[in-house]
Every structure is written in C-alpha cells, then in structure tokens.
C-alpha cells in the first residue's frame, strides 16, 4: 500500500514539476523567435520603430479583451482568441522597442465591474454573448495629459493593417490636434457651405446650385478643410494640399505650390488624361478635358512624375461592364477599370492596402524618372496583363474602337505613385508679380525663395479624377448618398497618410500576397468570356431579325401584305429555333466551365485521398509476398538441410 502511495506521489510530483518547467520556460523564451512568414507578419517595420524611438513621455495602452466571456462562447471564438494572441504579441513587441515608454495592460472586463464601465465609456464596441456576458476587444491609448485615442474593435479580417492601425494610434496620441487640409482645383469640388434646405429652395427657383463633392464633405468630418483659390500668392496654414485636375492655374499659384513643397508640405495630386466629369472644360464635339496643363506639367517634371498625354491604362481582366448609351446593352468596357486586390496587394502600401473594390474611369498612365534624393514607389496599377493604349477624340466614345486598340500586356500599368524625398524648385528665380501690386512686390522680394526642400515631403499622384466624383464613388440611397465602393476610402487613406508623419507613411501594410487558385481563376475567366461571346451571338441574331423584319415592313403595300405577314411569321419561327439552339450552346458553355473546375477538384481529391494509400497497400502486398517467399525459401533450405543431415545420419548408421 505504501508503495502505491509513493508511486502516485512520484507521478504527481513529476507532472507538477513538468508543468512548472513548461510554464516558466515558455514565458521566458517567448521573445526568442524567428518569423518565417513571407509577409513578415510578426515583425515590426522600420517606420514603427522610428516612431517608437521618438517617444519621450509614457503612454498607457489598455488592451481590453473579454477572455472569460470568450471562454464561455462557442468554439467559433477561437478565431478571435487567436487574433487576440496576435495583437497581444505585436503590442509586446511595441513595448519592447519603446524604451519603457509604452506600458501595456491587458484587461478582461467582467460584467458589472468598473472595468466594463470604463470600456463602455471609452466607446469600445460591445457584443452581447449571453444575457450577462459581454464581449470587448479593443485598445485605448492614453498619454500623461489625458489625451486618449481608441481602436474600438480589432477585426481579424483586417490583420494585414494591424501594425499601421496601432502605430497610427500611438502617433495620434502624440499629435492629437486636427490637421489642416487645403483643396485646390480647377473644378468646383468645394463650394460655399450652404445648407440642404437653402439649396433645395434655390433649385426650385430654377437656379443652378453647385454642390460640394461628397468626398470633400467626408473630408470635413475628419479635418479642417480650407479651399485654396486658383489664384493665390502663398499657401500657408495647411498640412496637406489636395490638387484636383490642375489646369489653368496662374503662374503665382504654381509658384506657391512649388514653395509649399519646398517647405516640406505634402501633396495629393489627381490628374487625368480624360476627365469625364469636366464637361464644360471639354468643349463641344468630342473634346477632351485633360490635366495637367503645360504649367503644372513643369512642376510634375521636376518631381519626376509624368502623365502620358492621350494614353490610357486598360485591363481586359479588370474591365467593368457598363453602357455608354441607354439603348445599347451593357458590355465590358475597356475604359472602366474595376480594381480588386490584384491592383494593390503586391505593393503592400498602407495607402492602397485594403482597397479591393474601386472603379476608375479612363485612368491615365504614370511614368517616373529618376530624381536625386527622391524615392518613387508605385501604389496602384492594373494587373500584369494590363496594357496602355492611345486614343483621342471620338474614339474614346466608341467601346469597340477602344477594344481594337488594346492588346494584352505583360507588365502592370501604374496608375498611382508615391514619391518621398527632397525636391528642387522649378522657379529658382522666383516669379514676376503683376506690376500694379507694387506694395506686395516689395514684400515679396523680402520673402526668401527656397530652392530646395528643407525637409522631406511626400507627393502622391493618381491618374484619374472621375473616381472621386459622386457618380462613380457613391450611390444614391433613400438617406442621401452612400458609399458605393472603395473609391472614397482610397481618397481618405491618401489624405490620412499624407497628413501624418513620413515615418507613418513608410509603415508597410503587411500585405496580403495573392494566394488564390490561379489555375481555377483562369478557367473561370475563359468560361466567362465564352459565355459573353455566346450572348453576343444571340443578341446579334435578334438584331439581324429585327432589321429583316423592318425591311419587310418597308416593302409592304396593300397587295403583298398577306404574303409578307406569312413570311414574317416564318422568319420569327426560324429565329426562335436559332435562339433555342444558341441558348442550348450557352448552357453547355456555362456547364462546361463549371464541370471543368469541379473535375479538377475531384482529381485532386482522389490524388490526395487515394493515391498514397493505394501505394501503401501495394507496397504492403509486395513486401509480405516477398517475406513469405523468403521464409518459404528459408524453410525449404532448413528442410533440405535437415533431410541431408538425416540421410548422412542414415549413411553413418549403415556404416
């Protein structure tokens, strides 16, 4: 009995010491690790480290996670548990790089406690798991002076942007004031504030009321937005300048923009080889309103960014369907590019990452040339199979003509660039001001002309303007305009990125490397194309029938009307038959594509479930047979040996 007790004690002690060793060891060794992921998901980027190194006062980080509540939830909460571990992991790395300025506290708010009340007061998102249990998963950052910023909820699907969000949070706690954004445009993107009621009354009176674009209204929610006039001497009090459709700016305005950049201001520029929105600027008869004009082009040349005039980016695989004319059926249009993650993911840039559904209209082609001290990074492009095409005037309104000019390319066409660095002025001599403004001139002479950037600034250029307009970025809904795609996100992301630190700008999105099944996508695309061809064929035969019928109608007179009617009916029957055949083919095409994909799935399923097991069975049978034969052989040998022995014994006996 004593012996058994001792045994149990030993086992218990063994288990206990093992648990303790594991617990202590794993806690101590947690930080010694290697990140093997291609995206470096678990390593901090340079920009973050640089911002953390600038911390000089303590910031408190409170990570709220309802762990106890999550434990009561379903197994499905494991995804959140895993994400929590990831967030906590990353935050620990932040504190590790902060020279003890960051202080992380993990809080598990239980129902009806002070912690829960605080979490609610901070505005964290709350989910009710059961009647009593509530689930929180957010972060609060607080500095000494009481400024607090919050991430309401961590979404596991936004994992790739997590580092950017965290760094931004810390950055905004350090720099809490609202940023100033200036808007300069040749278009009426921002009008005087007028409330909706007044505008409606004026419209009822038959007056033409220009309203601000919705994107600028959205901008006002986050920033102090200031309109910069087309004719301006200097741009001050603005952190980031947004320039939309730069054309017909006065020389002094150009000079002001130039000096703004020299002072380290950041620019967001939208140019377009064909701005559909600018109908007035396009003039009559198929004219095209394009920007930049020669004046602004000089500035862009100095930055090393060029928009190819009369050239457009196209992509068969990303072309969206639409119609030029309500009488035509909708079809895939080369002019529309519906960007998915293939346009942005490879660049792993925070400005464009997460922008997976945006629509561009006649986007242009951007090219960069090397400028000393400036780094250009592409942030938006077509897919690899995109290409550029040249078109002008009436051609632009003819979808078929555009398609005939397009051929598939092998490299992505860039539609957005980010340039960071120190730029040089275009006006080393300054500009002449108008004679009559003598007082001002005197003042101006005193102003120092900066010939080179004092500090780094960032310029982002996109080659489309129309994607910002209400028509393409928003849809009308019962409650006013609502976001239709990621176009406005792209705009806000860019402004946000530029109004932060350049360090923040360089925090890479972890990126999502495209890991979809390329082979399957290709098959699907081909099937889709063939389906579209069949649909086209059907429509063509219907149109042909229509015209034939019309011709018959024209021939009709009193004498032959009965005959013609008969003929018409016959033709109609023929057409119905033809369409039925085509529709059958259409179904077959669709089915074929689907079956092909399913077939591939089946093949891989068989390979992965049956191939190796069958090999194992085959090997087993072969091996056992071989062993049997070997054993039989051995036995035979043994038998013959023993019989030999017997005979020899017999022989011996005889002797």
């Amino acid at each position: 009995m004593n012996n058994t007790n001792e045994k149990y004690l030993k086992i218990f002690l063994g288990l206990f010491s093992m648990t303790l060793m594991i617990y202590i060891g794993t806690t101590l060794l947690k930080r010694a690790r290697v990140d093997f992921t291609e995206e470096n998901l678990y390593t901090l980027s340079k920009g973050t480290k640089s911002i953390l190194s600038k911390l000089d006062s303590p910031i408190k980080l409170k990570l709220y996670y309802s762990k106890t509540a999550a434990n009561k939830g379903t197994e499905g909460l494991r995804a959140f548990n895993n994400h929590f571990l990831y967030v906590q992991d990353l935050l620990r790395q932040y504190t590790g790089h902060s020279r003890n300025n960051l202080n992380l506290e993990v809080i598990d708010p239980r129902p009806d406690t002070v912690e829960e009340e605080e979490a609610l007061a901070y505005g964290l998102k709350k989910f009710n798991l059961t009647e009593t249990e509530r689930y929180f998963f957010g972060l609060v950052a607080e500095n000494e002076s009481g400024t607090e910023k919050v991430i309401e909820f961590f979404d596991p699907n936004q994992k790739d942007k997590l580092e950017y969000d965290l760094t931004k949070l810390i950055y905004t706690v350090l720099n809490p004031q609202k940023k100033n954004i200036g808007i300069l445009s040749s278009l009426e993107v921002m009008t005087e504030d007028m409330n909706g009621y007044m505008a409606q009354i004026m419209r009822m009176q038959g007056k033409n009321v220009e309203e601000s674009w919705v994107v600028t209204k959205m901008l006002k929610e986050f920033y102090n937005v200031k309109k910069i006039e087309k004719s301006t001497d200097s741009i001050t009090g603005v952190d980031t300048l947004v320039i939309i459709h730069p054309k017909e700016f006065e020389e002094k305005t150009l000079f002001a923009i130039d000096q703004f950049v020299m002072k380290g201001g950041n620019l967001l520029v939208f140019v377009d080889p064909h701005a559909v929105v600018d109908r007035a600027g396009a003039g009559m008869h198929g004219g095209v309103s394009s920007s930049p004009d020669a004046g602004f082009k000089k500035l862009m040349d100095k930055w090393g960014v060029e928009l190819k005039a009369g050239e457009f980016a196209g992509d068969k695989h990303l072309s969206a369907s639409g119609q030029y004319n309500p009488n035509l059926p909708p079809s895939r249009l080369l002019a529309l590019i519906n960007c998915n993650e293939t346009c942005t993911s490879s660049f792993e840039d925070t400005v464009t990452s997460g922008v997976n559904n945006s629509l561009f209209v006649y986007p242009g082609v951007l090219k960069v040339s090397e400028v000393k001290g400036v780094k250009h990074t592409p942030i938006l492009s077509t897919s690899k199979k995109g290409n550029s095409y040249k078109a002008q005037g009436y051609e632009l309104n003819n979808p078929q003509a555009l398609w005939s000019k397009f051929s598939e390319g092998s490299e992505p066409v860039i539609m957005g660039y980010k340039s960071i660095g120190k730029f040089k002025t275009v006006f080393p001599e300054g500009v002449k001001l108008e004679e009559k403004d003598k007082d001002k001139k005197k003042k101006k002479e005193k102003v120092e002309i900066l010939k080179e950037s004092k500090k780094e600034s960032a310029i982002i250029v996109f080659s489309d303007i129309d994607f910002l307009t209400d028509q393409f970025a928003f849809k009308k809904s019962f409650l006013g305009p609502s976001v239709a795609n990621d176009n406005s996100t792209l705009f806000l992301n860019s402004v946000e990125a530029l109004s932060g630190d350049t360090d923040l700008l360089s925090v890479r999105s972890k990126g999502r490397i495209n890991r979809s099944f390329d082979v399957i996508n290709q098959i699907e695309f081909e099937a889709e194309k063939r389906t579209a061809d069949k649909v086209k064929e059907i429509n063509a035969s219907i149109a042909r029938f229509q015209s034939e019928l019309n011709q018959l109608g024209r021939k009709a007179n009193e004498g032959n009307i009965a005959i013609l009617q008969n003929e018409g009916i016959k033709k109609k029957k023929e057409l119905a038959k033809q369409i039925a055949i085509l529709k059958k083919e259409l179904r077959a095409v669709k089915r074929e594509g689907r079956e092909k994909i399913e077939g591939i799935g089946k093949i891989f399923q068989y390979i992965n479930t049956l191939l190796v097991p069958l090999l194992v069975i085959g090997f087993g049978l072969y091996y056992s047979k071989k062993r049997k034969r070997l054993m039989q052989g051995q036995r035979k040998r043994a038998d013959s040996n023993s019989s030999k022995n017997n005979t020899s014994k017999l022989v011996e006996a005889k002797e």
Partner: protein
Amino acid sequence: MMAQVTKELMIKEFKSYFKTPLGYVFLVIFLFGIGYLTFEPGRGSFFYMREASMSAFFRYIPWMFLFLIPAVSMKLWAEERKSGSIELLLTMPITVKQAVIAKFLASWGFIGLALLGTTPMIFTVGYLGNPDFGVITLGYLASFLMAGALLAVGGFFSALTKNQVVSFILTVVACFVLIMAGSPPILEFISTLLPKYFVDLFESLSVLNHFDSIERGVFSLSNFWFFSVTIFFWLFGSIVLLNENKAN
C-alpha cells in the same frame, strides 16, 4: 551519439510496423482520413476556400493524431509485457532507458513516414496557386513535434498497463485533454474548479496552442522548449514505471 544497441533496436522496432497488416492499416486510414477531411464537402473545405495554403489540412492534423497516435503507441510496451517478451528484451545487454528511447524514436519515425505520405498535398497547393512554403514547412515541423509529444504520452500509458485497449483509451483521453487544454470551454470548466493562476498554468500545457503558434509561421524557442520538456518528462515517466514494474 546513440548507442549501437539503441540504433539496432530502433531499426528492428521500425521494421516491425511493416511486418503485420496493422501498420499498413494505420497508414491507410490516416492518409485517407486526412485527405478526406481536407477535401470534405462543405464550407470549410480546402477546395471551397480557394486559398493556396495548407491551413485546411493542418487544422485536422491534431484530430487525426488523437486516434492515430494512441493506436501506434498502445503496443509499445503493453504487448511486450503481456506476452512476457519484455523479460527477454531486458535480459539483452540494453538498459531500460535505451529501450524506451529506441521504441519511442521508432514510433516517431513511423508517424514521420505517415506525414511524408501527405506530400501530394504540397504539390496540390503548389500547382493551384502561390503558397508560402516557409509556413508549410513549419506546419509539418509543428505536426511532427506534436506527434512526438503525444507519442511520449502514449508510451507512458502503454508502460502503465498490460492491456492494449486500456492503454489506447487512456492515451486518447490524455491526448484529448492536452490538445483541448487551451480551448475556451475547457478553460471555463477548469476555472470553476481552480483559481485563475492554475488556469493559466493549465493553459500553458496546451499542445494545440503551441502547434497553432508554429503552424501560423513563427518558430519560437518557447514552443521548442514546450515540446522537448513534454517529451522528456513523459519518457522519463515511462522509464521510471518500467523500472518499477520489472518485478511484476
């Protein structure tokens, strides 16, 4: 490094898996099962998700191991003890420690072979898309380490009893607890019995947490420490048990 006797016994034990149909049956069931679960019809299926990663595959590895490993480990000692061949084994010039290590390594090698049999899956994702091969390699490493830890546990229970079925069932239960140790419902249950500190201790035992942590692509020394300590202690336990039970 390894004593010659250990090596020889290990090779003999490894070969013994292929001398009876049982070894083949285990391999076939494992390979077919994991393939079926990966491609299982439903929303979580590999082909439905259309993502060129092997997460759909590795997700089921712990659950396949839950049955495969006890099946492989149950005969390690129980059979020898029942038939009495253990006496014969231990009269040979080999220590208990060497025998335990040899048998453990042989069974680990067998599981390694089973994992090797899933290579068509790597070619599948490689053909269909553009997977992260670093993460896949770590996934296999995680599976192999987890197999080692669970086999050590299984070896211990096999040494505990003479009955293979009892050994199998005990191992399944123990493995289940170790796998589920980090799972929310189990932690909730434990927290009703024990103070919070013990819950954390218990959670640190979770095989699945460490498996997941390597499988997602980060190899930490703490994971390595966990698996090594687990393997070491359970093997040590088997050695102590066998030394004690030599007499009966």
